[in-house]
């Protein structure tokens, strides 16, 4: 069971990373984005970008993200996204 959870988590991070690289880091090397990089500090995503990111996560992982949940602790790095989405999926 623990192994399956781990595989799911890797899937979340990879899918989110692919989305970010394809949509916001056009042309850049995916290795340029590390798991702990702050999207805010690195200037990777703008105000509308974060909304696109949220829409993608909602559709891709079938979760509902509330307005009050749009905070850096949940969204501002690949690691934060992974932990947040995992928690949401666990309900």
């Amino acid at each position, binding site marked *: 069971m623990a192994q399956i959870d781990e595989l799911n988590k890797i899937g979340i991070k990879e899918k989110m990373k692919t989305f970010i690289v394809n949509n916001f880091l*056009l042309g850049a090397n995916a290795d340029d984005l590390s798991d702990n990089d702050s*999207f*805010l500090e690195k200037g990777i995503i*703008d105000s*509308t970008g974060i*909304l696109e990111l949220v829409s993608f996560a909602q559709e891709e992982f079938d979760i509902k993200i509330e*307005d009050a949940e*749009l*905070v850096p602790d949940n*969204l501002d790095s690949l690691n934060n996204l992974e932990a947040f989405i995992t928690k949401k999926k666990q309900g």
Partner: protein
Amino acid sequence: MRIYDFLRNSARNYPDRIAVVCREQRLTYRRLDWLSDLVAEGLIAKGVKKGDRVGLFLDNSCEYISAYFGILKAGAVVVGLNSQYVARELEVLLNDCSPKIIITDSKHSAAAGEALKSCCYPAQLWIMDNALTAEDDVIQRAGLLESDPCADDDLAVIIYTSGTTGKPKGVMLSHSNISANADSIIEYLQLTPQDRIMVILPFYYSYGMSLLTTHIKVGAAMVIDNRFLYPNTVLESMVKEEVTGFAGVPSHYNILIKKSALREFILPKLRYVTQAGGAMAVAMIKEFREILPDVKFYVMYGQTEAAARLSYLDPLYLPEKIGSVGKAIPGVKLDVLDENNLPVDVGEIGEIAARGENIMLGYWKAPEETARVLRDQWLFTGDLARKDEDGFIYIVSRKKEMIKSGANRISPLEIEDVVCQMAEVVECAAVGVPDEILGEMIRLYVVLNGKKITEREIMIHCRNNLAGYKQPKEIRFVDGLPKTSTGKICRLSLSGTNN
């Protein structure tokens, strides 16, 4: 009054009062005054002389404010550089205003250094990462500072705005331009030393700079928070820091209303909010007022060429005159003129023109552009409007063909010039199309020469050559572009097109 005296006076009157809060950093007026003295001495020691330009390539921060006043205290001219710019964009500005020094930080130094490599003249980079330890970075106090190096009419600040030709124009503002506008804003917003403004607008734009100058002049506090990407975080900061004021453009209010938990926050200290930077939908103003009915909502209008502000709508009249940008601010004469420069009749459309001590000296090294807008002692704004029977102004059309996305005015020509550098592109047209959050988003129509190129390749090219807010959100390939009878691209018809 000279701008550096705003800080000196407040430091004398309120030395221990907080001037700036930026996350964990807090600067008192005494400390800010001292830090800016150090920056001024550092600049003089590096060879900066009166009238020299000094670029500021930083995000909003304690360092920005220390450097802003330091540059002015050295008698030099502040050139606020858009901190989102890539090297190519920066190079254009640096070649135009030839600053002697560029003050930046580690985050931005690579772009600044790359831009300088291609510049036509040498400039020094001063990397300033932490104002609180700035004494380690500069030569110790050496008595180099003159107490009053400038006259009221001396050039103090250059702010670049997007020109309709695609080339940014440097708006030259004197000490008295900025001082007059600050006095006026302080008066109508009734700012006092007890005020605390939430600053999310960049200081390199005139709206943001007016927050800086007015609050320092009155001895109030600025709470800087660059995290509006996460609006709830900014709202939490507003509660924690007990801010009394907030300033934003329509997209900020759209995000607060539609994409934040604004309704769940209690903001008992919030006294007023201001909105400028383009028309905000009446429905959104009403919705915001329903959420925060006790907060005064100031609709304002202005231009960088006017040191920021030209008119405001007194919140008392908001229900009755909603949709209007109000009347002239104190000290400004504002009128709606016809083609003979005569005031139009009630209800008729004309061009907004302004007079006052706040009107710019002109555009930097662009006398022809200056002569086009400064005529017969009026600033001609290019904005079309009508007046009602009570003298309230209603804007009907903003400057033509500029895209207004979020807080930014964007020249379509600049985007088109960049995309047309691609060998496969015959021609293209950038237009603003309505966007629920940003007001307008950029759509690019592209005509190819028959060779294959993908949307992604164009996006990558834009990303390498344009700041993020100038990059198209949507690309459409077309066989041809609609043209006027004189052969110019007819953007108006494209912006109304969905196909």
